[in-house]
């Protein structure tokens, strides 16, 4: 007779073995390795929580200290490959296969290990895509997650950095998996229950608080005149033009400049209330002046940001907060919100080709995707209209009954024509293709595909790709804003002028902007300390951003 409960029985046995190292659900930090060796089986699919923000670092250290004779050939399915331990376990033979999304700081090492065959790569995903697979064909056997505190029943308070945790737990706990949480402290009563205790099997009191990277803090002191000029163009030529109210920003200095120009440049243009009111965004410190000036109605967050917790607590009308007062973030929901309920994504990139494909891959780094390709794509499942979406759809053309026409999400690439060390951002051929060839990847790691990008903003102007009708026009529109790069100097000058007369290319002067006005005095905050002042002392920046 068929046994329909094999997975369930296996899970019960794992938990039973783990209990030997626990008091009830509670496990001491010193017993992490024993616990993991008891619960894990060779070949398990394991989600080790960590993304571009928080890290289950105590459990990561524990996993890398396991005996490879007992724990080996794991298949890691996780958002972020960020800590050294995340790759150590592949060198040690503890893990073998990898499906992931983001690998910022480990990008170079992961490339070397892929090349050396130490990692068997499934695929590099976007966050939402990987989360989706947790429920279809990459469901974890064991999830190792991070929270702020837990009670003895396993009720978990994830705090402001909830991020991926609910999604990971949902996929694991309800499909016969084991959930092990590290927490900063065991308490009698958690401030709020983010994860109910019946979904958490073990709680480890970590030796130190879990690590969070302040990835979304951009010091206004580092914003350049060029970035201010581009921000002015984006505000006047795109935000105002389309009436963008619902949006998501990337993490670059260009978008930080836009945030810092809202209470100054944009306010003087009379745009308050007409643009940038509803956000899918992490709590960027650089948005504080706009919030304090009454620009922002609400923000839903993927995660939190180091130092922003007190500020968020005091602004519950703007942020999503729990009954305890602190932020509730949720990466899966916020990614979905960014995909379906925002009319614009704007972010920067490292390379753009002549079709408009863009990539942040350089020849020796696999940085992964994170959420950007999801934010920066046109959702074909969208059905609700909005003015910007309809206007963009109209510009994209199409024939027949207007009521049958799709709208378009605006996907804007904000890019300076040359990057660090005079490396051109515009190229004939993306480095991603070379990397794919070297690593034998079926798909080149493209961040935003050409058919999703609608506008490219450089210091030379804005190219509106929606209005291009042929591939040739598109190429010249891109060349026409590519400045003095080889791509830019290879332009057909007559055609670029024609495109300009049709409004496909717009120069600063076409928008009534004098590049000499792009001055740092336009920034609502010119330092981290200014942001602290704007917040009334509620923003508490990490030490590395202070100069006082």
């Amino acid at each position, binding site marked *: 007779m068929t046994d329909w409960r094999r997975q369930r029985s296996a899970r019960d046995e794992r938990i039973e073995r783990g209990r030997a190292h626990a008091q009830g659900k509670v496990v001491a930090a010193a017993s992490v390795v024993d616990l993991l060796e008891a619960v894990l089986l060779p070949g398990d699919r394991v989600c080790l929580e960590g993304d571009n923000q928080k890290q289950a670092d105590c459990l990561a250290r524990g996993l890398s200290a396991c005996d490879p004779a007992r724990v080996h050939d794991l298949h890691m399915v996780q958002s972020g490959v960020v800590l050294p331990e995340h790759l150590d376990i592949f060198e040690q033979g503890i893990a073998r296969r990898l499906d992931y999304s983001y690998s910022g700081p480990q990008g170079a090492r992961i490339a070397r290990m892929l090349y050396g065959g130490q990692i068997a790569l499934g695929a590099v995903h976007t966050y939402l895509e990987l989360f989706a697979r947790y429920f279809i064909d990459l469901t974890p056997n064991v999830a190792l997650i991070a929270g702020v505190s837990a009670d003895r029943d396993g009720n978990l308070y994830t705090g402001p950095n909830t991020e991926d945790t609910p999604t990971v737990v949902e996929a694991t706990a309800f499909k016969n998996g084991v959930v092990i949480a590290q927490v900063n402290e065991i308490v009698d009563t958690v401030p709020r229950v983010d994860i109910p205790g019946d979904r958490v099997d073990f709680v480890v009191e970590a030796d130190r608080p879990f690590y969070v990277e302040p990835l979304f803090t951009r010091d206004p002191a580092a914003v350049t*005149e*060029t970035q201010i000029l581009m921000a002015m163009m984006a505000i006047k030529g795109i935000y105002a033009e389309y009436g963008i109210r619902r949006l998501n920003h990337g993490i670059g200095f260009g978008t930080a400049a836009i945030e810092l120009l809202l209470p100054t440049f944009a306010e003087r243009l009379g745009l308050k209330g007409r643009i940038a009111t509803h956000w899918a965004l992490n709590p960027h410190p650089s948005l504080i002046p706009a919030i304090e000036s009454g620009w922002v109605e609400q923000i839903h967050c993927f995660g939190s940001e180091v130092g922003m917790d007190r500020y968020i607590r005091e602004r519950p009308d703007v942020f999503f907060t729990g009954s305890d007062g602190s932020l509730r973030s949720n990466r899966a929901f916020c990614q979905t919100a960014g995909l379906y309920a925002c009319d614009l994504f704007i972010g920067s990139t490292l390379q753009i080709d002549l079709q408009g494909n863009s990539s942040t891959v350089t020849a020796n780094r696999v940085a992964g995707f994170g959420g950007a390709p999801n934010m920066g794509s046109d959702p074909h499942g969208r059905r609700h209209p909005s003015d910007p979406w309809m206007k963009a759809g109209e510009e994209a053309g199409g024939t027949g009954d207007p009521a049958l026409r799709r709208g378009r999400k605006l996907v804007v690439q904000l890019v*300076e*024509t*040359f990057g660090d*060390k*005079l490396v051109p951002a515009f190229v004939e051929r993306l480095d991603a293709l070379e990397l794919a060839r070297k690593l034998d990847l079926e798909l080149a790691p493209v961040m935003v595909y050409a058919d999703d990008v609608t506008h490219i903003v450089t*210091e*030379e102007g804005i190219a509106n790709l929606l209005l291009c009708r042929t591939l040739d026009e598109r190429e010249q529109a891109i060349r026409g804003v590519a*400045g*003095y790069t080889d791509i830019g*100097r290879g332009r057909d000058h007559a055609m670029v002028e024609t495109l300009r007369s049709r409004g496909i290319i717009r120069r600063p002067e076409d928008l009534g902007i004098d*590049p*000499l006005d792009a001055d740092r005095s336009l920034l609502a905050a010119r330092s981290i300390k200014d942001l602290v002042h704007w917040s009334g002392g509620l923003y508490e920046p990490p030490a590395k951003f202070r100069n006082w």
Partner: protein
Amino acid sequence: MEKLTFRHTTNRSLAGTKAQAITGVVASGNLEVLMERSLAPDQCTVEIDTAINGYGDVWEAVISDFVARRQPGGLRITINDGGARPDTVTLRLLQGTRLMEAV
């Protein structure tokens, strides 16, 4: 280090009476531009000392566009470059001519 010199003939002299102006700072990715009104009204020279070799054709294009746009006749322009990007070069040149146009 690389030295570059460009000579241009302009249609007119730059407006204003200021004899000299300096803008920018020599730093990584930045440059200083010294402008002196010391040439014939239809002449403009640009001498560059740059920290990064091999970008002569980009400099030539940037300077040509600037001369065509501003017609800086009469100016001797001297640049100390710490490896600035072309857009920064253009910005400094425009800042310099704005200063020179002051009466």
